[in-house]
């Protein structure tokens, strides 16, 4: 398959999203009614993008590819860039969407989810700053709509508050982009990284700070994450799993890409480390204090993202691997936990919950342990007092994490004291049917165990991907070679 198929990954969901409403009208489907035809069409679209990705991406880890769009060469035109990291993110997004797509949803939800799909894939693939901004905004708007569509009186206000915070973030990020443009006259990532690598006229650090805080809103960065507990407790489990699992990681990876390629200055990583530590402390403590399951998971997700930011602030090889390992681990575990909320806890659900909790805390044979170990050894190896503080905070936070996660398990075995959760009684005496959510959670547990058994090859692959995404020369050569004749 030729690489010209790559843009279809973004274009196809967008096209179907725009055709869905007229199609629903033509078929006579009422806007609020679920329609199996439209549901099937949406799923098939995502499956088609998955197929294209699989066809194209079999050897991107060896050789990343870049596609020039619209017939203009890269400094002027725009390009899509597919490397190992983007490939993994695409697969994760597509699989998560396929598994978590709500079956009985209204037409509008399908449309919004398709827009969400297109923009997240565009975010993973985009090769220039302004396109990143546009896809980010598109993703944000789709998210606002999906939050506002959830039932309950609180939904519009939650969505509005999220919109306001996200809008402020976009304004800051846009100012950062303007600063970069006025400094360099280009927005192409390869072009800008060439400029950064040459050492002459490095980009102002203020631009990075603006972009960090701006895009950090979606990445649950400290101080701009007040939306997290509200949104995760208003939306359905599936959508919370999607947001916490995939969307936040996309934003993180975007920030890391910009950091790696454009800002080689050592000062750039310090704010990342500092905000990461603050996020870790505030998230874990808030999770420890909260007494309902959903908000506990939301706050814990803030803490985990803080941990990931700490990892990415480390020097290149060590930090990238640790950060990616933590991100992908969180991408499996947190959706699993959110999905377990859907039904009351029963005996086997608690076993699954314990498995996820053990991995999240980092108990040896499970993947979470290896990811956390990589971060800790990285912190110790790099040294410095701030990294020391980070290491100590990290260890204390792990203890706190174990404390609140096992409080849930403890409550289950005490039986008389039900946990306050999404449903009125979260503890059930009888085994309730697992349903789709439970099945997906079970599958994620299976993935966790499979990774535990094959930890060596998985680590090697991830290390290769980490090396590749930190390789500035390779990005530049790939993008300049792909120019149109």
């Amino acid at each position, binding site marked *: 398959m030729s690489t010209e198929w790559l843009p279809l990954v973004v274009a196809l969901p967008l096209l179907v999203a725009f055709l869905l409403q007229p199609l629903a009208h033509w078929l006579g489907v009422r806007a609020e009614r679920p329609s199996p035809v439209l549901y099937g069409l949406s799923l098939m679209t995502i499956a088609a993008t998955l197929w294209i990705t699989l066809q194209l991406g079999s050897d991107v880890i060896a050789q990343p590819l870049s596609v020039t769009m619209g017939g203009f060469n890269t400094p002027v035109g725009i390009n899509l860039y597919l490397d190992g990291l983007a490939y993994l993110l695409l697969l994760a997004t597509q699989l998560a969407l396929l598994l978590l797509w709500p079956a009985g949803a209204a037409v509008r939800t399908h449309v919004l989810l398709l827009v969400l799909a297109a923009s997240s894939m565009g975010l993973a693939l985009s090769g220039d700053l302004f396109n990143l901004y546009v896809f980010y905004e598109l993703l944000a708007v789709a998210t606002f709509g999906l939050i506002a569509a959830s039932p309950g009186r609180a939904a519009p206000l939650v969505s509005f508050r999220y919109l306001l915070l996200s809008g402020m973030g976009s304004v800051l990020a846009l100012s950062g982009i303007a600063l970069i443009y006025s400094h360099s006259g280009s927005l192409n990532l390869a072009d800008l990284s060439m400029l950064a690598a040459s050492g002459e006229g490095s980009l102002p650090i203020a631009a990075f700070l603006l972009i960090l805080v701006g895009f950090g809103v979606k990445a649950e960065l400290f101080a701009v994450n007040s939306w997290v507990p509200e949104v995760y407790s208003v939306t359905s489990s599936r959508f919370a799993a999607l947001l916490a699992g995939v969307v936040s990681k996309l934003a993180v990876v975007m920030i890391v890409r910009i950091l790696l390629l454009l800002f080689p200055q050592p000062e750039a990583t310090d704010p990342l480390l500092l905000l990461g530590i603050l996020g870790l402390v505030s998230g874990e403590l808030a999770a420890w204090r909260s007494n309902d399951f959903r908000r506990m998971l939301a706050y814990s997700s803030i803490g985990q993202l803080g941990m990931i930011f700490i990892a990415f602030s480390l020097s290149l090889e060590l930090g990238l691997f640790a950060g990616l390992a933590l991100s992908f681990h969180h991408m499996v575990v947190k959706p699993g936990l959110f999905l377990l909320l859907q039904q009351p806890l029963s005996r086997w659900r608690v076993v699954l919950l314990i498995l996820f909790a053990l991995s999240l805390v980092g108990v040896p044979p499970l993947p979470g342990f290896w990811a956390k170990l990589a971060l800790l050894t990285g912190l110790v190896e790099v040294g410095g007092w701030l990294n020391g503080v980070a290491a100590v905070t990290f260890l204390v936070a792990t203890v706190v994490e174990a404390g609140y996660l096992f409080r849930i398990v403890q409550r289950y075995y005490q039986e008389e004291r039900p946990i306050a*959760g999404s449903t009125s009684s979260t503890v059930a005496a009888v085994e309730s049917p697992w349903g789709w959510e439970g099945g997906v959670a079970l599958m994620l547990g299976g993935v966790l165990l499979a990774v535990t058994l094959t930890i060596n090859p998985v680590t090697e692959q991830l290390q290769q991907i980490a090396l590749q995404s930190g390789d500035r020369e390779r990005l530049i050569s790939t993008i300049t070679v792909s120019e149109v004749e």
Partner: protein
Amino acid sequence: MTLAIILYTGAIGLLVIGLAGVVMSSHLFRMLLGLVIAEAGANLLLILAGYRWGGAAPIWQAGQFPTTMVDPVPQAMVLTAIVIGVGVQALAIALLIRHRHYSGTLQRTGGLNQLQADLDREAGVRHTRSSDAPTLNPLTEVEHVH
């Protein structure tokens, strides 16, 4: 050059005024207006980033060279940003209307209290406010005391 300084000050000033408006207003609609002002500031900044003093409009005509033209890329970007901004603002107003319909108020504190109570009720935990919490609505709090 003084003109450039004035324009940059204006753009950054709009940005700061807008962000301050979002943070300091107590009315949800004013918060949205703050965001609109901040967006205008950011757009102006982007335009200024690509402006060439004494340059011509970026329209190709015989006898003109691209080097004497204003950079068109930021202008294209600002157009995109404005379109995105309008869409987001319309959505925000729709959300506000629906919120007003549900709760009857657009005040920030009142809505926030109600939001916390709603979330707590949905989660099935008792809605408690710390006894040390600052009184958000003095008028109703006084009645409790007497």
